[in-house]
């Protein structure tokens, strides 16, 4: 499960038409950034890839969202399995009010894995992958809430990696963090891209330029422009895109 293809996707919250005919494909092992002003539908869109909008009353989707050719909104798709394959990191760090170890082990435990060696191994590996291991290795039993915001966010990434997803969705993962923590997260994303397909929503255009291979610009629910990041930033085809990335409106 690595390639994503959205065809003609519309999304509604009740009568509110938030996504309009979006078609876009994402290749494996790349970083794709979604940018655009608030309310443009980019968060709604990213949350459709692991069906996090399912619990919102009045949410409705039209069109196709295929992951490796499989429509993920089909009835026979088990949403729990989908979310193990398509992990998500949220805007505000949201660790569970438990120990660091238990946070990372949670995904395995809910899958019914009880073998302590397997769990410990995975926890260590995930914390190493998220570049948090050296900072917490002596305090695995401390509450996750005692970590700093940046550490909490890397813990959330470790927790997501522990269930071995192939796609990572990140909804403004650094917007609540200080510049140093942000840099660490960005560095992490660049290393993770070797083994994961990453989609990131960001308000920070420099961030999108630094870390992404392709960028999609959304405006009022429509996909205005989607291109290689270097191309979109140096040579935007639409006036709206140009105005947005040059900071004329936001």
């Amino acid at each position, binding site marked *: 499960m690595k390639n994503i293809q959205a065809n003609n996707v519309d999304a509604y919250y009740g009568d509110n038409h938030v996504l309009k005919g979006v078609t876009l494909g994402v290749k494996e092992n790349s970083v794709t950034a979604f940018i655009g002003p608030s309310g443009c539908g980019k968060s709604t869109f990213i949350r459709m890839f*692991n069906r*996090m909008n399912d*619990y919102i*009353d009045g949410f409705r989707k039209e069109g196709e969202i295929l992951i490796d050719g499989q429509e993920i909104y089909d009835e026979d798709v088990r949403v*729990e*399995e*989908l*979310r*193990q394959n398509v*992990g*998500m990191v*949220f805007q*505000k760090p*949201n*660790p*569970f*009010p438990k120990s660091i170890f238990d946070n990372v082990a*949670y*995904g395995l435990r*809910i*899958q019914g894995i009880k073998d302590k060696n397997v769990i410990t191994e995975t926890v260590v590996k995930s914390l190493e992958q998220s570049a948090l291991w050296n900072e917490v290795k002596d305090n695995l039993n401390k509450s996750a*809430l005692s970590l700093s915001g940046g550490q909490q966010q890397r813990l*959330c990434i470790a*927790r*997501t990696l522990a*269930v071995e997803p192939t796609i990572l969705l990140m909804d403004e993962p650094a917007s609540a963090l200080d510049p140093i923590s942000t840099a660490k997260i960005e560095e992490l994303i660049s290393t993770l891209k070797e083994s994961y397909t990453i989609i990131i929503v960001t308000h920070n255009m420099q961030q999108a330029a630094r870390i992404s291979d392709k960028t999609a610009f959304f405006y009022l629910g429509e996909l205005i422009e989607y291109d290689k990041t270097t191309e979109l930033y140096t040579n935007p085809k639409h006036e709206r895109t140009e105005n947005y990335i040059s900071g004329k409106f936001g």
Partner: protein
Amino acid sequence: MNNLKKNRLIDKSFQYFGIACTLFGLIMLAVFISKILMDGIGRIDWSFITSLPSRKPEKAGILTAWTGTAWILGLTAIISIPLGVAAGIYLEEYGKKNRLASIIEINIANLAGVPSIIYGLLGLEIFVRTLNFGGSLLAGAFTLALLILPIIIVATREALKAVPPSLREASFGMGATKWQTIWYQTLPASSGGILTGIILALSRAVGETAPLIVIGALAYVPFVAKTPLDEFTVLPMQIFNWVSRPQHGFIVNAAAAIIILLVITFILNGIAIYLRNKWQKKVNW
């Protein structure tokens, strides 16, 4: 300038009015408690707690009453906690937020305000007669469980509502099912609020008399209840019975029993406040 003076005067006078209102309630309570203490404290000793009721006030004790209260408390808890918490979880986590849900919500709030004697009549018809429990502990416990169910449901829902959505999202995002999310995340995070609600509801049940009179709890029970199907009395019933006797000795007994009942409810409320503070400190997002 005049206006400013006037506003300040209104401000001051409301402040004093507020102090007076607060003091009114506190003074009433203080007078009541001190009167009861003066009347009854001297009567409380070991034999008062361990004696069966008697026709002679100096020999009478509250053994059957407090054991009955303990039975009722335990049985009511066993019946009402699973039902109330489960209903609260369903309404908050599973139920769709539509018209039907809001009608149910309003009705549950209404049920919490229905006079307890009405619940007594309901219990009499359903548990005492139809289900043939008679005037037993079981009938009493079921009736009181019905009475406090709305309180527990509302408290459970409020506690679940207070759990930040980000916690649920985190769990769902990891591939957890709804039930796993509730069991491992939402319930532990809200258990302080739920427990507080349960204990406050139970302390209300302990003080109820009217519904138990209706279902036929006895005022005079010369034996300690051994099974849930035994007939019973409870502290408020015993107090009610003693207060209506003419002899002064029974009035003293009633005061002593009131002290015991107050102690029980204060302890329950104290536990509730302790739990609330403990959880508030522990979890902060």
